[in-house]
């Protein structure tokens, strides 16, 4: 699929509801090359992607396809070797609080309570404008949203992996970012915890109308959560292969969807791409 077809697909989807809105993030012909001892390694090439307000986009692909690299580029943690990324029409030159990141390994600071961890983010974004009581209220609201209010005064080592990730999500949401970036946020969790956190994330996304980009390698998770699934070809020199628009009504219920033929179709489309078109030869 050429890039012109792709942007056509994007446009078709967006015209349905958001014809007049401008994309929050524009990724324009971005390539990423890493210098290694064996020479240059082309991780990404010709990536073009627009992310519109209120939509949830997942990046899916086999491991090593550069989906995390792309997310890091949007986050500004790394800079592209070619092309340009824009956020609200400004070039992304580094990380910023308007692009909050949820890390796979939660990355809570172990010497701070859950409250302290979220407060660190809240203080950074709102500390200059608002009073202490207002900041406290923001932290509590964020923790409450992910049902972690009871653990506000606990330290990260005192709570489970799933709870840590909830706090990580609360920290990101508390910053009221323009866009939420999640790098396999549930990758390190067991299946049941993952399911409940997916549901929770879904409801929080619905409540806040947040824009999100999520990296995953879980097909069900991608279909369940996203408005669009960006499927990436295998690396090296990975690029966007196909984009599927998931047109399932929200709120989405995982039990109902299990019997939904459209859900099965979307799932099949992604599987088809991953295991027929882009089957990774594992040595």
């Amino acid at each position, binding site marked *: 699929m050429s890039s012109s077809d792709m942007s056509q697909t994007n446009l078709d989807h967006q015209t349905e509801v958001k014809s007049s809105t401008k994309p929050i993030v524009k990724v324009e012909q971005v390539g990423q090359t890493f210098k290694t001892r064996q020479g240059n390694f082309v991780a990404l090439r010709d990536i073009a992607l627009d992310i519109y307000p209120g939509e949830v986009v997942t990046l899916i692909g086999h491991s090593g396809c550069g989906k995390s690299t792309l997310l890091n580029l949007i*986050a500004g*943690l790394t800079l592209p070797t070619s092309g340009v990324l824009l956020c609200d029409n400004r070039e992304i030159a*580094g*990380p*910023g*609080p308007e*692009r*909050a*990141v949820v*890390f796979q*390994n939660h*990355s809570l*600071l*172990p*010497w*701070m309570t859950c409250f302290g961890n979220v407060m*660190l*983010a809240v203080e*950074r974004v709102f500390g200059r404008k608002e009073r202490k009581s207002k900041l406290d209220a923001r932290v509590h609201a964020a923790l409450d949203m992910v049902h972690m209010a009871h653990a506000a005064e606990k*330290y*990260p*080592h005192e709570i489970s992996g799933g709870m840590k990730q909830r706090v990580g999500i609360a920290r990101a949401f508390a*910053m009221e970012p323009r866009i939420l970036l999640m790098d396999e946020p549930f990758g390190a969790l067991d299946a049941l915890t993952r399911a409940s956190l997916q549901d929770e994330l879904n409801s929080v996304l619905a409540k806040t109308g947040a824009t999100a980009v999520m990296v995953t390698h879980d097909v069900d998770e991608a279909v369940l959560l996203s408005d669009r699934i960006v499927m990436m070809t295998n690396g090296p020199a990975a690029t966007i292969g196909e984009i599927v628009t998931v047109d399932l009504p929200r709120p989405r219920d995982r039990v109902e969807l299990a019997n939904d033929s459209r859900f099965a179709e979307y799932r099949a489309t992604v599987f088809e791409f991953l295991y027929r078109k882009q089957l990774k030869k594992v040595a």
Partner: protein
Amino acid sequence: MSAVIVFKNAGVGMAPAPETLAESPLSAQAEVSTEVSTEVTTVVSAVAEDAAVKESQTSTDAKSTASQPQGSGKRWWTNIGRRVYVMLGNLVPPLLGLCIMVGLWAFVALNNDSIPGPIATWEAATKLFADPFYSNGPNDQGIGWNVLSSLQRVGVGFGFAALVGIPMGFILGRFTFVNRMFEPVISLLRPVSPLAWLPIGLLVFKRADPAATWTIFICSIWPMILNTAQGVQRVPQDYLNVARVLGLSEDKIITRILFPAVLPYMLTGIRLSIGTAWLVIVAAEMLTGGVGIGFWVWDEWNNLKVEHILIAIFVIGIVGFLLEQFLLLLARRFSYESR
């Protein structure tokens, strides 16, 4: 994998570790990688909390260990019995070690007239500690004053070393250029005995007391700089990424992320410094004189009061041990569970 399961069960009772091993045939057990088997050993030791029990469990084969009745607390008297057993197991080896030391000492003293035995030393010690804080002029003071003035020198020298060394460690850890700039200097000066700096101290300060403090400063500063720098370099990238994504200011990065992350390393540096400082002060005071435990040892040698020298050795050892324990306690207080 099996080691992980074992660890999770470890809290319930002490039996599971050997049992899981016993379930597998012996031939399979022999194939268990060294990595796993050492892990199991640590698990066993963590459960038993007892060197003697650990030894018996690891040395006997799995079959016999599994057949041993190791109750997980079904009957209260087995529980109490086990607790007493564990307590004895904790106390017996160290006490035995001390007894052997005193025994050897008594044996040597019996065969050598010039060395006083444990009993003579004990009698001298009771007399000495009856009045540890007397003062008959600068050259004749109680052992309490001597220890305190040595501790004071260590404290002052060490304090200055911390004031200089910790910020310097931060700078060296944060900026590679500065690190590489100072690397040859530190490598050159660190192996030098701090006592070699004593004449320089005497020359500059013109007095013995600050010169001794100066040697403490010199010997304390290296571990402080190096450990702090290492801590700064080893701050997990995840935490720094958090700082970058949140866009924290440099002062917030230092106070909220770098400092807490480096604190355990810094405390290790402090512990090493104080340990060395306590070693060095005795030697430094022997050379400079005045009041201090090192001077006191030398003074008692000149008086040929060998019991007092032996007492001084014990006092120095005990004070050093207490310093170490105090700093370990401090380190435990400020260390965080990493995940």
